[in-house]
């Protein structure tokens, strides 16, 4: 029913475009055998029609890829975007554009497929230890997406002009002027569909538990690998031809499931069908709106998709209780407070260096205390801001990891920072030259709007960690799509937003730094009140109920504190940075197990890391500057990936 309605809408929109293009009596001719010198007929045959078919094919490929991913990973949220395939393909294309453009002489496919496969492999590696637990896998995908997105953002900052064309079509643009894309996409799609049909039986068995499947004599790893490879190939091919089209791989299978496709075979077919129709409706709709709204189709699907995910969140079952993780790392510290005390001089030293060290043309320069005042306007506010933001992310990360009982949780994944980013993007779209006060207000209200949304969505599931984190997934994908659009527009005022999104402390004012500092102080002051909850929450719902703790109320309080810390920190260093992930994690490895010392130590470590990141960003590429958030993303992402590698 739904499928028929969507098909009707798509067909009607295409018919409108066709009527607009050529006189009625020429329609069939224009579609199938255009006159070689009639431009309007050629336009229909070589642009309108292939665009329709490329839309259908790409949508079907993404829908099928999503269904394959979901089937093999037993994860309703797996799709090329959430698994990092898109991010890898995108980065590979950008890097090739800059350093080996000659490779494109052979087409974009190989580069995109290699990049997508590499990042997908990384994601799998990260989720290995948790046996591809659905949530862990999505989190790993998000981490890799943010990490690679950070590198991409860095390339964009330094080579904005050289990469603009790439960003334009990477934002998901379906324009066609020949049948090449159709010819390139159709055979792999047909082959892949055939292979998927062959994999159907093993896949059906895979849907059972591992041990059952193994008992039936199925080579689990081989089937998994083949299916994943197939799905990666399909999605990367789409990226190579039309760019990143978000959420189709999620929405197709979802609609298939909602329409009652139960058996794996039916599910694959209907996922592809719905994917095709969805993309087609979105693309034909955009075309019908005319050139006035020349948004990339990928942005459109991400807007629709993010809404779809948020809408389906309450309908997802509240998932399993996160298992308490066996503590790893060194032994528990005997005297955590003593170590914290010893760390204070380190912080002081780092601050001193960050204020005094600089590069000048041709060398280095160390400011003596006497001349520091003349440099404080340039270094003071950003250093203080970075310090406070690092501490805030350390706090937010600890709170979040304790709240969800998941060591991979971090404030970026909560979506609060994405909310702040959305507020800022909105204000730049509306006002030509927004004032600092306006951007501040917009970012803050964006952050709190996300919080409110999350509380409302999570009211029935008592704020279950899955729901909270999935909101984050939806929102960060949406922000990524909007960022891609901003890059494509290429207005220099947008670069201000992009710089902030990359985590630049360049524009931090002393008022902003002071506000962030005050937030740190008040959260630290309030932390003893939360200490008991934070000790019990990671043990899971059952344990919490057993000791008579008000689950929803305590979660709400911790969540509010997390949101406040994230919003205040994000305003300073942008939505990226893995400090919130790294600091609490490293501190726990050091042996901080009790909640209160862990909070304080994570804040301290976060502050040190962010100040160092800011200093490095100021110095490494002098006179250019690398945003502190990006440096921190590298540090944090690399730390995280190295850690996973070692513990594998």
């Amino acid at each position, binding site marked *: 029913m739904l499928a028929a309605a969507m098909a009707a809408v798509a067909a009607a929109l295409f018919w409108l475009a066709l009527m607009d293009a050529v006189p009625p009596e020429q329609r069939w001719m224009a579609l199938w055998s255009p006159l*070689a010198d009639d*431009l*309007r007929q*050629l*336009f229909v*045959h070589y*642009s309108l029609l292939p665009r329709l078919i490329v839309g259908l094919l790409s949508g079907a490929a993404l829908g099928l890829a999503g269904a394959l991913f979901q089937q093999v990973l037993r994860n309703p949220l797996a799709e090329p975007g959430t698994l990092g395939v898109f991010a890898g393909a995108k980065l590979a294309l950008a890097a090739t*554009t800059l350093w080996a*453009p000659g490779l*494109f*002489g052979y087409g974009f496919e190989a580069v995109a497929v290699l990049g997508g496969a590499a990042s997908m492999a990384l994601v799998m590696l990260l989720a290995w230890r948790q046996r591809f637990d659905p949530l862990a896998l999505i989190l790993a995908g998000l981490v890799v997406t943010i990490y690679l997105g950070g590198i991409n953002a860095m390339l964009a*900052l330094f080579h904005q*002009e*050289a990469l603009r*064309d*790439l960003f*334009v*079509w990477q934002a998901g*643009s379906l*324009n*066609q*002027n*020949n049948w090449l894309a159709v010819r390139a996409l159709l055979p792999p799609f047909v082959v892949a569909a055939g292979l998927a049909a062959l994999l159907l039986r093993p896949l059906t068995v895979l849907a059972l538990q591992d041990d059952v499947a193994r008992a039936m004599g199925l080579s689990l790893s081989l089937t998994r690998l083949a299916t994943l490879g197939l799905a990666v190939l399909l999605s990367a091919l789409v990226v190579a031809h039309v760019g990143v089209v978000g959420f189709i791989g999620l929405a197709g299978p979802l609609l298939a499931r909602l329409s009652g496709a139960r058996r794996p075979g039916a599910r694959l077919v209907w996922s592809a069908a719905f994917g095709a129709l969805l993309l087609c409706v979105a693309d034909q709709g955009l075309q019908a709106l005319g*050139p*006035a709204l*020349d948004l990339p189709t990928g942005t459109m699907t991400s807007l629709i998709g993010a809404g779809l995910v948020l809408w389906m969140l309450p309908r997802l079952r509240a998932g399993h209780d996160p298992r308490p993780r066996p503590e790893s790392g060194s032994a528990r510290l005997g005297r955590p407070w003593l170590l914290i005390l010893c760390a204070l001089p380190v912080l002081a030293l780092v601050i001193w260096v960050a204020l005094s060290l600089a590069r*000048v*043309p*041709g*060398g*280095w*320069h*160390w*400011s*003596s205390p*006497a*001349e520091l005042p*003349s*440099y404080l*306007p*340039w*270094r003071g506010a950003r250093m203080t801001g970075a310090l406070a933001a690092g501490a805030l992310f350390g706090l937010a990360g600890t709170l979040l990891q304790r709240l969800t009982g998941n060591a991979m949780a971090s404030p970026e994944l909560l979506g609060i920072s994405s909310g702040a980013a959305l507020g800022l993007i909105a204000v730049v779209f509306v006002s030509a*030259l*927004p004032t*600092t006060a306006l951007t501040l207000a917009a970012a803050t209200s964006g952050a709190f709007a996300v919080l409110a949304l999350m509380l409302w969505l999570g009211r029935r599931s008592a704020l279950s960690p899955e729901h909270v984190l999935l909101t984050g997934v939806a929102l960060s994908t949406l922000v990524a799509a909007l960022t891609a659009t901003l890059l*494509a*527009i*290429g*207005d*220099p*005022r947008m*670069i*201000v937003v992009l*710089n902030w999104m990359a985590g*630049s402390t*360049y*524009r931090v004012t002393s008022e902003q730094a002071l506000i962030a500092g005050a937030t740190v102080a008040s959260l630290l002051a309030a932390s003893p009140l939360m200490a008991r909850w934070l000790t019990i929450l990671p043990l899971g719902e059952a344990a919490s109920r057993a000791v008579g703790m008000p689950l929803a109320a305590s979660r709400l309080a911790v969540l509010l504190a997390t949101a406040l810390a994230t919003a205040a920190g994000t305003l300073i260093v942008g939505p990226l940075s893995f400090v919130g992930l790294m600091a609490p994690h490293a501190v726990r490895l050091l042996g901080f197990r009790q909640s209160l010392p862990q909070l304080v130590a994570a804040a301290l470590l976060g502050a040190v890391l962010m100040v160092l990141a800011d200093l490095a960003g100021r110095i490494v590429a002098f*006179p*250019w*500057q690398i945003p502190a958030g990006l440096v921190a993303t590298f540090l944090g992402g690399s730390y995280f990936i190295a850690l996973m590698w070692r513990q594998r």
Partner: protein
Amino acid sequence: MLSRRTVLAAGTAAFMPAVALAREGDLRIVSMDLSFTEMLLALGARPTAIANVPLYQRLVSVPAAPADAVDLGPLTEPNLELLQYLKPDLILAASWQASALAPLERIAPVHWLPTFARGQGPLDFTRDLLARIAGLAGREAQAAALQGEADAVLAEAKERLRAQAGRPVYLLRFAEDGRRTAIFGGASMVGDVLVRAGLRNAFAGRANIWGTASIGIERLVEAPEAVVIHFERGAETARAMRRLAESPIWNALPAVRAGRVLGMPVIYPNGGTVSVTRFARQLAAVLAGVPAAHG
């Protein structure tokens, strides 16, 4: 201040700055935007420091940036600490940077100059901007000469293109994928030169404040009689042309069939007076070889 500097790093003082300073008595001017840089250099008022030298060289390139000009980093985040260290006398910054770069005022007097025409044609805007910058740099005579040359070259171009008057022209740059182009409308400098030279801009669609838009190749069918003039970017353009050659729509365009697709060296579409002169010359030269307008 310099004398009190304590120098760290390897314990030597040998790497202290070797910044080439402008001649004694010259104003130490700093430019924060590409078109200001172009105008300063054309006026012979060598800027002490320039925001984003690599971008200037890539997009504008004439007059060449002096090798010893200090690069201040990106247009959006110039290195202010470095700028303070260079002790400039005067800073030229774009008005779109004003909200973000307000702290520039602490370093030296700042002139916030517009970078796009609002309510006036781009060429009139460029003329006013050149006069303003020349006034600030004390180079009025050079400005008059530059402007005179630009006006003369433009008039000459119009004369040479008399036979082509009213001819529609698409002005664009092909994207590497052969599916899209960056196309320049009337609000861009090059678009205005086109019209002043007696031609007609075939693209009248929506564009950003600089007069640039990104459109699909298939939309070029909207003005079949147009000449297509594109900016050549070497290997990148060559790859785009190879992909275009596979497009039946592209191959069916009358401009393509009649060989009316003309390449020319890159001009910064919103450059200053030198860019105006260069573009007018190139326009006349490239169109001179095309048979007069269709019958």
